């Protein structure tokens, strides 16, 4: 395949991933639970390690179900800590994500020392590398992203209503738990496909940062829907361009740097011009 085609595929996959994450992050910010992406991102590690030990394959189709499952379980563990053990949600997040990550590290070290072959290909899930991704993987991720876009398109009004006032929504017949599950599913898909490109730690920036930038510049939800997509697309393009310009540069971290700079720049701009939003 030509170099141009590779770049095109990577860019298309990253853009789709960025926009879907931005929208999911926007909905998460309505819910007031933006860190669930971070919890899931750290939580996929044991699933990846276990799937690898089980299937002895590094192909995404084998690793993905395990990653989804363990990410979901980690999030459930956090919610369990909040509901059943009376732990505050920030402490519960810290506990769930770090313990799950620890479990993942146990699995990884078992792979490394236990003669199960190299873990090197699995590292890609941790640090993310957009450049080494295969086109069919991007196609696969893109399909999932389209699924997310579909969910958003058909469900955003309901989600918008439910997260404004859960009690009221329940009183008029909506099911907030179903919305929670739907949003969790969207976050899971976003994180698990995004991690391959952005890495465990940086994934949450793709979710959080566009919504923060949008909250600085535009006030209304409808405006934010467009704005987060724009912000994320701009950052992806700028990041890809930078990493193509300097050799040996990872794309994901540059996208994150651009996203954060937009957020910080916007805040400074708002402070200087006393623009009240």
């Amino acid at each position, binding site marked *: 395949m030509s170099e141009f085609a590779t770049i095109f595929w990577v860019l298309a996959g990253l853009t789709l991933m960025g926009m879907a994450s931005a929208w999911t992050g926007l909905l998460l910010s309505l819910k007031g639970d933006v860190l669930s992406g971070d919890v899931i991102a750290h939580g996929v590690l044991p699933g990846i390690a276990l799937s690898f030990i089980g299937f002895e394959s590094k192909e995404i189709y084998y690793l993905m179900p395990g990653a989804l499952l363990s990410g979901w379980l980690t999030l459930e563990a956090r919610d369990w800590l909040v509901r059943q053990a009376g732990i505050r949600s920030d402490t519960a997040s810290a506990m769930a994500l770090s313990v799950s990550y620890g479990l993942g590290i146990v699995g990884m070290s078992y792979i490394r020392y236990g003669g199960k072959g190299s873990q090197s290909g699995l590292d890609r899930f941790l640090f993310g590398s957009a450049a080494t991704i295969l086109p069919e993987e991007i196609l696969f991720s893109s399909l999932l992203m389209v699924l997310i876009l579909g969910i958003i398109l058909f469900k955003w009004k309901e989600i918008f209503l439910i997260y*404004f006032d859960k009690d009221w929504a329940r009183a*008029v*017949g909506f099911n907030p738990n179903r919305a929670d599950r739907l949003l969790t599913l969207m976050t899971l898909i976003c994180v698990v496909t995004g991690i391959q490109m952005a890495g465990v730690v940086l994934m949450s920036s793709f979710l959080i940062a566009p919504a923060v930038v949008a909250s600085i510049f535009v006030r209304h939800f409808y405006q934010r829907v467009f704005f987060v997509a724009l912000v994320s697309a701009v950052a992806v393009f700028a990041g890809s361009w930078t990493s193509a310009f300097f050799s040996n540069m990872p794309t994901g971290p540059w996208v994150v740097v651009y996203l954060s700079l937009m957020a910080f720049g916007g805040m400074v701009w708002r402070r200087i011009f006393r623009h009240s939003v």
Partner: protein
Amino acid sequence: MASNEIISNALEIHSLTVRYGNTIALHQVNASLKVGEMVALVGYNGSGKSSLMKAILNLTPFEGRITAWGKSVSEVLSKVAYVPQRAAVDWKYPATVKDIVSMGRYQPGLFTQRTSSEDAKAVDSAIVQAGLQDLQHRMIGELSGGQQQRVFIARAMARQADLFLMDEPFAGVDMKTEDAIFDILQSLQKQGKTLLIIHHQIDQVIKYFEQVWKLQEGKLETGSVEAILGQRNK
């Protein structure tokens, strides 16, 4: 004749008991609301006012039977409107007044629905009735407490329901807004709607209401304002 009378009640509560763990919030409560009645629900903090309202709306598990127009409340949800406490939501939410009022028209469904002209008409008339015409494109975070309360009432009115359940609509608003909100409630009553309103200030209840439900230690007394609250305040 007797069965006719039961069906004509907008709300019937039969031996309602609500527990949280080992604590009993409401014990064997019986009450009924006639169509077109406006009743204040009073009681001290923790007397179970909110629990009663949540039980009616099926937001909390309960024992007993609650019916509206002779049917279970979940069957006639579209005719019931709820106004929650203003403090229960995040007012920094990125929405305008009109967005929130429009939410009153959404129905649960598989896909997002388009707004019909009937919906638009209901929303507009709710906004006018609540006196929010000038504010309808403002962000809800910019509103004062009384205006936010009116947004909540308008959202309930947009549902064009027949039974209104309001949780502390007068909390934290000034005297003038209180009168304005009460005018809205009275106009609803004139349209033949039934209203049950949680109120925390006894003296205001005497000023505005005729019928009252009083909750004390999980027990309910019902009757006219004079009968229930009169002696103590004279």
